[in-house]
């Protein structure tokens, strides 16, 4: 059984906003990336998983329990980090941690203490005056304090400084190694790239793609950048390619006499056969990143899917 199940979830907020027929599962021990532009519906989906909102259609389960019907039960082994950090203002950080521990019936505070030390949290001050990053750390500590098996994290690193972001990524990896199941909504590619096993992309309330990250990383095609020494050479290359159709040109920069080509690993010798007849200034491989792949989904006007992504 999947740890998190979202089945045909629909919530229409009107005028095209909300989520529509969203379906995905998160398996045990998996880190699942949840990506999409602002307003795509990530937080809305998470709201339903947490049992805060009632689905118009469809259903969400946590460990097989219906989120809407048993919201209190699902929280026992679930850690939640809200996207917006809105802490109760009347308390100090220490009081807030104490309150969350009491609400969870947590007595042993050693793990909490370790987390506080790890994230260099200074919880003594009032929550009203705390810096954004400090509040975020506080929320992280309270989400992980009861060492839950399942974690739902909505943009966990926004507001953290780069060092802390890196540390958080390491922390997620450790937790994953300990068998935790994590749903991670994020806008930061490096974070997703470094931690996620599978990734779902949501846009305008609809899930448009779900894929295994490693399939992309170990893609069987490579991209190379070529720069020619003269305009003539550049044009000759282009016309030859157009005629023979042997290579796939991804993009060109006419004023710099540059072209990007994509080749299957099996065809790499063919590439060299062709370019050996040209006067080249340089030749380099462009390393693949998930970012290149994702950018197209963020493009509001661009076509969905397809291989014509623009890098650089």
């Amino acid at each position, binding site marked *: 059984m999947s740890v998190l199940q979202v089945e045909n979830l629909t919530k229409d907020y009107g005028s095209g906003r909300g989520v529509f027929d969203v379906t995905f599962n998160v398996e045990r021990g998996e880190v699942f990336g949840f990506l999409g532009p602002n307003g795509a519906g990530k937080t809305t989906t998470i*709201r339903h998983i*947490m*049992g*805060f*909102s*009632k689905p118009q259609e469809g259903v969400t389960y946590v460990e097989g329990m219906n989120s809407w019907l048993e*919201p*209190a*039960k699902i*929280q*026992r082994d*679930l*850690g*939640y980090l*809200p996207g*917006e950090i*809105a*802490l*109760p*203002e*009347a*308390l100090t950080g220490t*009081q*807030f941690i104490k*309150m*969350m521990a*009491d*609400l*969870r*019936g947590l007595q042993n505070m050693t793990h909490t203490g370790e987390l506080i030390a790890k994230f260099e949290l200074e919880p003594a001050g009032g929550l009203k005056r705390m810096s954004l990053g400090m509040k975020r750390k506080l929320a992280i500590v*309270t*989400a992980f304090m009861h060492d839950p098996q399942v974690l739902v994290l909505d943009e966990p690193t926004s507001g953290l400084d780069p060092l802390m972001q890196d540390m958080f990524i390491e922390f997620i990896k450790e937790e994953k190694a300990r068998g935790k199941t994590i749903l991670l909504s994020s806008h930061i590619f490096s974070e997703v790239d470094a931690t996620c096993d599978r990734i779902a992309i949501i846009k305008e309330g609809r899930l448009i793609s779900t894929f295994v990250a490693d399939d992309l990383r170990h893609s069987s095609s490579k991209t190379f950048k070529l720069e020619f020494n003269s305009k003539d050479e550049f044009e000759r290359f282009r016309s030859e390619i157009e005629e023979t159709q042997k290579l796939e040109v991804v993009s060109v920069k006419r004023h710099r006499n540059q072209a990007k080509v994509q080749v299957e690993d099996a065809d790499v010798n063919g590439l060299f056969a062709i370019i050996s007849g040209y006067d080249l200034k340089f030749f380099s491989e462009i390393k693949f990143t998930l970012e290149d792949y994702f950018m197209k989904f963020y493009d509001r006007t661009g076509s969905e899917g397809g291989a014509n992504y623009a890098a650089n």
Partner: protein
Amino acid sequence: MFSKPILKQTLKANYKLWLIFTGILCVMSVMTISVFDPKMMSTMMEMLKDTPMAEMAGDKLDSMTTLLGMLSQNFYGMLAVILPMIFIIIAANSLIAAQVDRGSMAYLLSTPTKRGAVVRTQAAFLISSVFCMFLVVTVVGLSCVQLVHKGLWGEKFTPDAVAVSRILDLDEAEIGDNLSLILKNEEALQAGADARQIDPDVYLVYLNQKMTIKAYDAAAAALGKDAEEITKNPALLLQSPEALAAAAKVMGVPAEAYGAQLTAAIEQQGAMAAQSMELQNKMAAGISAAAEVLDVEASDLVNSMGKIKASKEALTAAATASGLPEENILGMINSQLAADELAYDDGIVFSVRDYLMLNLGAFLLMFAISGISFMFSCIFNLSKNSLALGAGLPIAFFVFQIMAQISDSLEGFKYLSLITLFDAGAVVSGGSFGVQFAVLGAVGVVLYAIGMNAFCKKDLPL
């Protein structure tokens, strides 16, 4: 059922607000109670009697002469409504809607705490904070009545009854029932007058007036009639031997003697009434003259006629100016001063039961009002919407209530206001209020139930 950690947080977030409002309420209550002076109030009301202001205030003026009456009009008709209401409006919104709006509710609900437990805890806090507010005000109020006006618990006795009881070796209650005993004992008469800080002449008049009132009461009871009817027409008394006997017993004289005495008094009163206009004019001239001698305003002197008695010159001036013999003027002054003493007796009557009922009523009203604010706080996700109705409706009720009070033509507005169900005047003047109180309680229960149910079922944008 309830969540202790949430209660703790709620207490931390709200105790200052509660302290401020409870503090102000207590101070206002103490001030209202301590400035009350029954003698002064009754003279003031006497002065106002025929002015346009009195007409506006209607029958409220009468009730102002007692402490509870004044409290019911002043404090429980105004401050004890608006101040807790403001507290409720702020607290109710902050307990639910503001936390949903801000998003901090997400933390509470991301623990194994049921929504029901959250909303029950917050409701319990709001109800008990309002209850404790009135509990504190009640205790402070009672202590203040005890400290300032004395003798709250047990039967209340006037100072003269206490003083006389020592001399006659009877307890105070017996003295109260047999005032005629004082008349028959020179020493007791002097002690009673001293205790009241008036001279024996005035005390004598006072005792006679007091006994007459009691006699009429006794007669009224025997006749099964209202005391007021007898006061208007004492001749009724003469028609019934039982009534006459009852009244005579109070006066401490045989029935026949009292009958004769009463007949004479009724005749005299008729004669007086015929020339009362003339008499009043003469008296007014006398007071003006006395005021000149004493170098005070005539209007001030009306309230303290004792000064004329104290000054031989003023008395002579008054007698000359009015053309009345000095004895007559003294008599009038004495009966005026005795009336003040009677008013004082009325004013110090304080029923703890009525006072508790006043506070219970105010609490029930606030329970219902807090039901309104709490319900809207539960229903709406945005503070501004929760406040629009949760604050708007109670304030509208208050405004309607005020409008209904200031003008007869707007009286219909009272039917639009929940506050009408708490009729403080009715509580202290023996009117009926039980049904209204029950309705307030029921309204509160229903509103809280609706609110809690709505919160458990709604979509939370957290």
